């Protein structure tokens, strides 16, 4: 099974089994890691904000304008910031590494 690696806010890395077709947010949430995802994945908040490892960031499809607008409500947005509900797990993303952004 495909895997993703998630670094939590304490710096601990978790290896998670990744169901293809699920969003990264869903994989992280179902694994019980602390991701708020208040709107449930409809790109209407910014509480599933993650930082994607640069090498993986470049391989992701470009974010839609809607995602950029919601990122405006996040804090400490970096060049590698994404909303994890908008990244769909595919075989190509097997091994992707992300870090949970600070909560606020």
């Amino acid at each position: 099974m495909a895997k993703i690696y998630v670094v939590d806010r304490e710096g601990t890395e978790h290896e998670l089994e990744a169901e293809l077709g699920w969003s990264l947010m869903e994989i992280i949430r179902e694994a019980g890691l602390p991701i708020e995802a208040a709107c449930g994945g409809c790109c209407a908040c910014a509480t599933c904000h993650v930082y994607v490892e640069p090498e993986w960031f470049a391989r992701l499809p470009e974010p839609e304008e809607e995602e950029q607008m919601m990122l405006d409500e996040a804090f400490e947005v970096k060049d590698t910031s994404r909303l994890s509900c908008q990244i769909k797990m595919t075989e190509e993303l097997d091994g992707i590494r992300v870090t949970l952004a600070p909560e606020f």
Partner: protein
Amino acid sequence: MASDLIRTDMVIVGAGPVGLFAVFEAGLLGMSCHLIDNLDKVGGQCAELYPDKPIYDIPALPVCMGQELVDRLMEQIRPFNPVFHLGQQAQRLERVEGRWRLTTSAGTRFESPVVVIAAGAGSFVPRKLPLPEAAAFEGRSLFYAVRRRDAFRGRRILVAGGGDSALDWFLALQPLAQDIALVHRRDQFRAAPDSVAKMRALVERGEARFIQGQITGLLGTDGQLEAVRIRTPSGEILHPCDTLLAFYGLKMELGPLADWGLELEGGQIKVDTEAFETNLPGVFAIGDICTYPGKLKLILSGFHEGALMCQKAFKYCFPDKKLVFRYTTSSSELHKRLGVA
């Protein structure tokens, strides 16, 4: 600000879709309702987070926009004359002589045999700057809302954010301010294009500044801001100002009801599945805020929970009356209540 006590059958905390539909079910059984919401509008998440996004799982409505669902519910409950108390948060709940007394942040006071918590993921509150030093400035030189526009006259203001609140206040305060700047992480804005055009015109005329970047620190003493540190694409700068207005949207939090003595589990309120009653008699919880084995956070589940809740709520409101189960299709009594008789 103590006001007269409002006596009613049911006080509903939260005017989202589930709270609104509870008015309908309560109304059919002859109970009248007052609703409280911290937002300044009804509809909860449907209206605030996704008004123009489609919902496909409302029975018999193949597709419905978030705001449309709210509008339709408002139409459906109109016969029952619900009273709304918006822009205030349910703050305190006390037991007084066998009834519940609830007080809001605006000082509105209610007394009722039944309180229904339909608060979704909690109340919407402004998202605060997650900087450790921010709390020391809050209320004196850092604000997340504007109460009195005049209080900002002659100040040197920095407004943060790219949405309508940020742009609207930027434009409203610009004529009063000694100087004013807007900071936003991109040179694109969610706000209405008209407001953005007005902001750009002010910047072009040199009457205001726009800084592209993100706030990374606050500097000042004794709660008085002196400068804000901003990371811009070309490096870190210090922007001198004495007032920061930050508009980073709203977030949801449980708020004061976490201290009402309710039995909680993972930030949700535990209820039984017969009446959706909490551990406090006469206090019910329905919709996303409640939890029980098998709970699904669906609007339709919240509707169901509201209907069952009303059966037990009726007993608290009318202990001497017998409740007879009737259908809206055939009951002339219900037709009268619905105003269709």
